[in-house]
């Protein structure tokens, strides 16, 4: 939701980044304020996921130009774990499996590390158990998730719910959801979306990276951006997503090129 007294959470200027020497992001500009939900859409290979991973600090990506301010601070001065502790959260498109590590242990370590960084109370295993079970209700997750190894043998939908559960635990300032809707059936999509909607508030900002409009029926964005060839070429409101759904992406690119030609 757009608020009058909102603060800028993230300000990206002219961001370029490469992976294995190939330039994926080419001068991207993007700004999001507290309370807002933005959707980033675009065809495969346009750089949406790369943008998400660069913000989180994945080491495979090299930033070659531009700046990113997170709550006014240079994000690139922070290591990936410092960004997470500062409140940058990435819900992974493909959450990795960690065999042998119980989900409950992992979640508690993560929660306590972030809490400690924020000068807040850490929880012992029993307290944490109560706390996490409460959060799991939000996502209609069964308690046996806690005893299973992190993401191991989880279905696609279970993995995505586990991601949103972590978002609920860590209470981030900026949440980037990278194709959280992919691989979800209708019920799971509804549950996950409801979870995200409940977590959205006037102090945090949410970026939805997605291919499909259907997610946006559940989580209604304030802005929709279209990405192509490593930059944002069009921005609109939620109706833009509906238009993309019926017309595809090609017309946006053509329109952009026409605009660029006249400038």
């Amino acid at each position, binding site marked *: 939701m757009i608020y009058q007294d909102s603060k800028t959470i993230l300000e990206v200027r002219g961001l370029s980044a490469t992976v294995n020497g190939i330039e994926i992001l080419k001068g991207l500009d993007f700004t999001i304020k507290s309370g807002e939900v933005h959707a980033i859409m675009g065809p495969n290979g346009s750089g949406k996921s790369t943008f998400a991973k660069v913000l*989180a*600090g*994945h*080491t*495979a990506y090299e930033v070659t130009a531009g700046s990113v301010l997170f709550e006014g601070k240079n994000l690139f001065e922070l*290591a*990936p*774990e410092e960004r*997470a*502790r500062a409140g940058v*959260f*990435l819900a*992974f498109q493909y*959450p*990795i499996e*960690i*065999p*042998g*590590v*119980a989900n409950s*242990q*992992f979640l508690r*370590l*993560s929660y306590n*590390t*972030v809490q400690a*960084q924020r000068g807040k109370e850490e929880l012992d295993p029993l307290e944490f158990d109560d706390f996490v079970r409460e959060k799991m209700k939000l996502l209609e997750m069964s308690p046996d998730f806690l005893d299973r*190894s992190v993401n191991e043998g989880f279905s696609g939908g279970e993995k995505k719910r586990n991601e949103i559960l*972590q978002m609920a635990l*860590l209470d981030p300032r900026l949440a980037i959801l990278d194709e959280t809707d992919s691989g979800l059936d209708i019920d799971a999509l509804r549950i996950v979306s409801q979870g995200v909607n409940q977590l959205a508030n006037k102090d945090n900002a949410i970026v939805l990276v997605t291919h499909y409009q259907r997610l946006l029926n559940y989580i209604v964005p304030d802005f929709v951006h279209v990405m192509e060839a490593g930059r944002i070429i069009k921005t609109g409101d939620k109706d833009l997503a509906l238009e993309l759904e019926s017309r595809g992406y090609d017309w946006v690119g053509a329109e952009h090129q026409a605009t660029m030609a006249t400038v």
Partner: protein
Amino acid sequence: MSAVLQNLVNQPYKHGFVTDIESDVAPKGLDESTIRMISAKKNEPEWLLEFRLKSYQAWLKMEEPTWANVHYPKIDLQAISYYAAPKQKPKLNSMDEVDPELLRTFEKLGVPLHERMALAGVAVDVVFDSVSVATTYKAKLAEVGIIFCSMSEAVLEHPELVQKYLGTVVPTGDNFYAALNSAVFTDGSFCYIPKGVKCPMELSTYFRINTEETGQFERTLIIAEEGASVSYLEGCTAPAFSSNQLHAAVVELVALDNADIKYSTVQNWYAGDENGVGGVYNFVTKRGLAKGVNSRISWTQVETGSAITWKYPSVILRGDNSVGEFYSVAVTNHLQQADTGTKMIHIGKNTRSTIVSKGISAGRSNNSYRGLVRIAPPAAGARNYSQCDSMLIGDQSGANTFPYIQVRNNTAQVEHEASTSKIGEDQLFYFAQRGVDAEAAVSMIINGFCKDVFKQLPMEFAVEATQLLGLKLEGSVG
């Protein structure tokens, strides 16, 4: 390997200091006179000298084994000293008489020698180079008839027990290193649990090699009579020398009817530096005889040190319904090499064995599991379950599994499972994105990987082992 992983594995060895203590060190080299010298220094009975000389003769005809998946220059066995002992009063009546320098050494290593300091009530025998320097809680154990002392003392005070069992599980000519040990062993621990006695505390031996260019040849013998049970733990460290040290131990366990022996090892000998210079050659023969019906022998080992480890704690399941277990975590880093595993020899009916092996390789190290499961013709209804998992850290380390399965009774059931996994960048990034740094992430992944083994360790040592692994692998993630 990323820089983070690198830094994690490459922590300095914390036990690498040398104690400045006056020692009685024998000249280098080995011949019959060396053996007579050792025997004489220990005032040994004639039968033991004969045992040694017979072993020596057998050893002379043997070849150093080369089948293990480890590589090192040939060891010059004439260039090491076979006896080193700190000079002190020959007989100690209380801890206060122990050389304070020695006490400080063990305090530094975290081994509580002062009985008042012994936290969890663990009885400790301490072997420094070639001799046992202290044994705690002896009197208390004697009240229930348990004998826990150094091997030298046992030879003098309980010769009938030593003579009855020594070399019965690992015969003098068993293999090259066992034969060498039988000829020149200097000290070790002896433990006898009488019929029906459950040992009231953990027994523990702490081995320390201090003198450069010495070999440590310890000999441990544990006997559990009918219905007895004992849990025993050994720990090992050595200073950081640029030359290699040889450690060739023999451990024999005997469990009679309904007896139960649990033997745990936390081995942290000096492993050499990051270029593979120095470190202990750990060539050890450990074997248990589950002689009686319903007897049980369980080996748990956490192997983190040594330049080279060659070690196969085994169980001969002779008694009907006897049980053998082997739980192992072996960690190698830098240029360490480990070839370790077990042998489960099923002879009795309905015998059962379990093997759980976890190998972790980091740096440029090489870690092999080698295990034999043999079901002999009389072992009707025998069962074995083996699980061998390897974890690779970085992209320059190696892991191998060499299972040998020989089944000669068609009523037996043998299962073998193996897996290989890798701590990857993407796992670490996932942790990082949740606020957790690489060090804590690796520690959690490794502990998860090893938990089936750690839960077998006595509690105090499980904590120690967990910390040791953390130290060992700090810097390996990168």
